[in-house]
């Protein structure tokens, strides 16, 4: 039995434009089962329904349909139980410009019903754990993006929740802060917390998450460990660069070659080929293109990525959407 169990969760919005009211299904029936102690990643493009799902699970918006239990508490009937069990760290953060990190942490603990002395103790411990002690009594507006993000996370776990929801934890962070953040997320897990995060970064889902659900258009299109998902796509991917003017012709030449399972012409004079075996396919591709008088500028063989999984399931690349 998972620590987060979700069945048929759905939410739609009405958007009004002049006279017409259109119903948009932000989340159209999501099932999830997250095991205790996992880092679970919700991967999808912007507008796929990641944040809406997260906000429903965090009791911020009521679902239209579906059921969920988090740490044994029912999302609809036991909201207080859910709130006690979860920490929620919103995408845009939630620090006040003029408040200090210490004040924010103490307030957050006290809003969870923790007494004053204990709240102050926990704030001190959290400041140390997130390497914020040095800035503890400075206003949050003086912090860097990474520091502010760390305050957000420290606030989110000040009441020692069982489950932590992180909405796009590394969006807008520089690579170094991102790596730092990944370490923090892993530390949360090592402290016994279950982490449920959303991301639109393939690498983040691949490297950081134990299990990934890919969501698109409010529906989960694939779910599993990153490795299982990638293994579902047999063979390798070959990317060939031929330049804009030859791209179409190259596509025609290669379509129908029996050792290629998929040929796709992409922007920028690139072709994406799905092949059984990259090693034997590359020379044959080169020869075929050479015979047709097309000069190849780049050739790259790689194992399928989560983007290829996304592409296979949705027909679009995550990088494009």
């Amino acid at each position, binding site marked *: 039995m998972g620590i987060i169990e979700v069945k048929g969760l759905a939410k739609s919005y009405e958007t009004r434009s002049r006279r017409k009211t259109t119903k948009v299904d932000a989340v159209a029936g999501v099932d999830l089962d997250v095991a205790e102690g996992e880092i679970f990643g919700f991967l999808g493009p912007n507008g796929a329904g990641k944040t809406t799902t997260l906000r429903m699970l965090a009791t911020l918006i*009521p679902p239209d349909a579906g059921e969920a239990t988090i740490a044994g508490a029912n999302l609809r009937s036991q909201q207080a139980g859910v*709130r006690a069990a979860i920490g929620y760290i919103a995408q845009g*953060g*939630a*620090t006040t*410009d003029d408040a200090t990190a210490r*004040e924010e942490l103490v*307030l957050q603990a006290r809003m969870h*019903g923790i007494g004053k002395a204990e709240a102050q103790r926990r704030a001190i411990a959290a400041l140390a754990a997130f390497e914020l002690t040095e800035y503890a009594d400075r206003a949050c507006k003086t912090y860097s993006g990474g520091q502010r993000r760390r305050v957000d996370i420290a606030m989110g776990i000040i009441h020692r929740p069982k489950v932590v929801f992180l909405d796009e934890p590394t969006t807008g962070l520089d690579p170094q802060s991102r790596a730092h953040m990944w370490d923090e997320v892993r530390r949360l897990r090592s402290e016994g917390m279950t982490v449920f995060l959303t991301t639109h970064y393939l690498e983040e889902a691949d490297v950081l998450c134990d299990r990934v659900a890919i969501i698109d258009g409010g529906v989960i299109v694939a779910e599993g460990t990153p490795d299982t998902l990638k293994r579902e796509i047999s063979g390798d991917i070959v990317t060939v660069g031929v330049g804009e003017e030859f791209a179409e012709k190259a596509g025609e030449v290669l379509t129908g070659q029996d050792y290629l399972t998929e040929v796709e012409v992409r922007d920028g004079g690139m072709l994406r080929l799905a092949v059984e075996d990259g090693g034997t396919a590359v020379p044959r591709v080169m020869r075929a293109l050479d015979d047709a008088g097309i000069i190849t500028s780049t050739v790259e063989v790689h194992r399928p990525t989560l983007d290829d999984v996304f592409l296979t399931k949705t027909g679009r690349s995550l990088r494009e959407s």
Partner: protein
Amino acid sequence: MKVLHDTWLIFHRNVKLMLRSPLWVVLGVSQPVVFLLLFAPLLKPALATMGAHSQAQAYRIYVPGMLVALALAGGLYAGFDLLRELASGIVERARVTPVSRIALLLGRALRDVVVLVVQAAIIIVLSLLFGLTVSIPALLIGYGILALITLTSASFSYGVALKIKNPAVLGQLINNVAQPLMLLSGTLLPIALAPLWLRDTANGNPFNWAVTGMRALFTGHPGDPSIWKAFAMLGGLAVLTVVWSGRKFAKSVR
């Protein structure tokens, strides 16, 4: 108990943050002060029909109205501050905790009451220099009226801000509420000068009773029935507004 505890928590934080940028408390009072200095001297002849035969008497009529206007306007514009907080995720962060929803409202609205108390004190002290006299008990009762007004207007403004996300629209709406309320309360110009139908309309306006009650207090008639009427109407209105706005805090969807 929990509501009180949480209200104190939110109130304490908001007051602390406000003290860090006290400038806007002073800026908020600058317009009334300008009115007091430049506009009030014109009032003696204008208010003669209401029994103002001296400068001090004119102030006794003018200042209470201005204080009501200050409480009304100050509270009504409080929603803008909430819009900023909503955008920065602070409200959402609180709403994921078990903190009392009504406390999220009351903690803020009571901070606004404190701001009003300070601003009103500035105006009253300045007015004393111009010859205004008022007894301490009357002043305290007057503060009670002003506190109820601010509680109502701020709660209303917060509730609307949770509903209307666009600051420009919020501004227009607040203006459209504030202007008629102020005119119909006789805050600046006495409603006694108005034609009968307008006076009848004003009779249904709790803020008009607040102004009448305040003037009674400042002119030394603490037994005037308008005072308890003002308390009764404003008290009822405050309860309604707080309940309505508190619900918005409980289920605001943003």
